């Protein structure tokens, strides 16, 4: 299978999955827009009326952090289980295993485009209209996509080998949620060395901070951090791809056990 065939296959499978999921729901395609909207409404309600933190830009601050984070966590969870989900296909055909996590990542990406559209609309409604700076979202989204593909494929190896690993993924996501600066601003860390370490070791923290810099503060991306994210993304993807190739047979056999 060459690259263009693989890309076409991934796109086709991802769109078919979305279609079939939509058909199973009464409101069908509407959910792609409705889901992010409901999520925003929930946050608005909780922070404005329950926690009384609706002041200033905190609501926007939270959304700009949480929406990319949700993309990451949903996509990685689904990518990690992708090979087990496609057991029937794996036992019937020789397909490069990397295809399975990538299909799920692609599906999550298409859905995320709706979530991002909702986010941008809300930004405009709240007078964050630095539209000229939005082009920087393209490299950011691209970087996050590669990071998701990389982490998903590594986790897919682990989960297929031992389903126990699903438990660990839950913990991992919670850890990431607390260390990525979703509810707090990473720039408020006083210790510069600590802040630097966090932005280097946790690519998601760097990503989320960058989304805020672009959408809220009208700044340019920090090239150094972008390079760190790219390095993490490529490293994880290479490991995942290599393991899925090398241990393909072992993983197929695990599906029987």
């Amino acid at each position, binding site marked *: 299978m060459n690259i263009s065939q693989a890309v076409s296959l991934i796109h086709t499978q991802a769109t078919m999955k979305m279609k079939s999921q939509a058909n199973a729901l009464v409101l069908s395609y509407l959910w792609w827009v409705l889901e992010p909207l409901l999520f925003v409404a929930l946050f608005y309600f909780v922070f404005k009326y329950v926690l009384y933190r609706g002041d200033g830009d905190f609501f926007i601050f939270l959304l700009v952090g949480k929406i990319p984070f949700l993309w990451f966590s949903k996509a990685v969870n689904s990518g990690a289980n992708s090979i087990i989900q496609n057991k029937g296909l794996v036992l019937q055909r020789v397909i490069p295993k990397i295809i399975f996590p990538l299909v799920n990542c692609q599906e999550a990406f298409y859905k995320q485009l709706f979530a991002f559209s909702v986010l941008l609309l809300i930004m405009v409604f709240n007078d964050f209209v630095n539209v000229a700076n939005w082009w920087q979202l393209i490299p950011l989204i691209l970087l996050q996509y590669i990071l998701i593909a990389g982490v998903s494929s590594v986790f897919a190896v682990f989960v297929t080998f031992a389903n126990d690993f699903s438990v660990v993924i839950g913990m991992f996501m919670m850890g990431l949620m607390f260390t990525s600066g979703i509810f707090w601003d990473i720039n408020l860390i006083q210790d510069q060395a600590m802040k630097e370490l966090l932005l280097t070791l946790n690519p998601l923290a760097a990503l989320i901070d960058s989304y805020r810099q672009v959408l809220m503060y009208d700044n340019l991306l920090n090239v150094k951090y972008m390079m760190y994210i790219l390095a993490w993304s490529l490293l994880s993807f290479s490991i995942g791809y290599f393991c899925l190739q090398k241990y393909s*047979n072992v993983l197929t056999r695990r599906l029987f056990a």
Partner: protein
Amino acid sequence: MSDAIITFDKVTLEYKSRVGLFKSFTHKAIDNVSFSVQKGEVFGVLGGNGSGKSTLLQMLAGILQPDEGRIVVAPNITRSLLSLGLGFNPQLTGEDNALISCMLNGYSKKDAKLLSKKIEDFSELGKFYTQPVKTYSSGMKSRLGFSTAILSKVDVLLIDEVLSVGDIAFKAKAQNTLLEKINSDLTVVFVSHSDQQIKSLCNRCMWLKNGSMLAQGDTASVMAQYSQNITIKK
């Protein structure tokens, strides 16, 4: 017709599954089996339940690798495994499943769409073709699977008991198409527990029992040994 397309050389495959923390269950599904399938022939594998037929097909398809021995496959050979209930995403429509299946066989999306029309006709699924596969009866699933496999151009077609499902009319049509294909370049490995089907379709066959090969050769001689064994049991 003398060149081998797939050769098994003393192949053994063992399943291992855990049944407790330190206990595991092992089972030799295929035990020291050697044979080869020639280009353009219809090769039958005869055996009862649990004899290792399906595992053998999965190894022929390249899905499972042997623990011992080796499998030699001629270069640039496309193989397609056709078995019941597997390989379809039940949430997707028959059309989408057929499309993905064709694309996995190396067709471009455009060609896959053209082929999909033919599959729709051949499978006689009517309006069910655009319904999710989860709404299909087992006969309909096998019709979709068979149509997809027989219409895609592959070098080796591996068939797992699918002809045993479906109504008489479709079964006859399937057998006829298969016979037509046999006269072309297609190589077929056909697995069944029915000696009648093997007799009517295969030039050569092998007899598999509990993972071991008891006989192989031309269909008549293997059948003679097989029926002798069955009569002794009676």
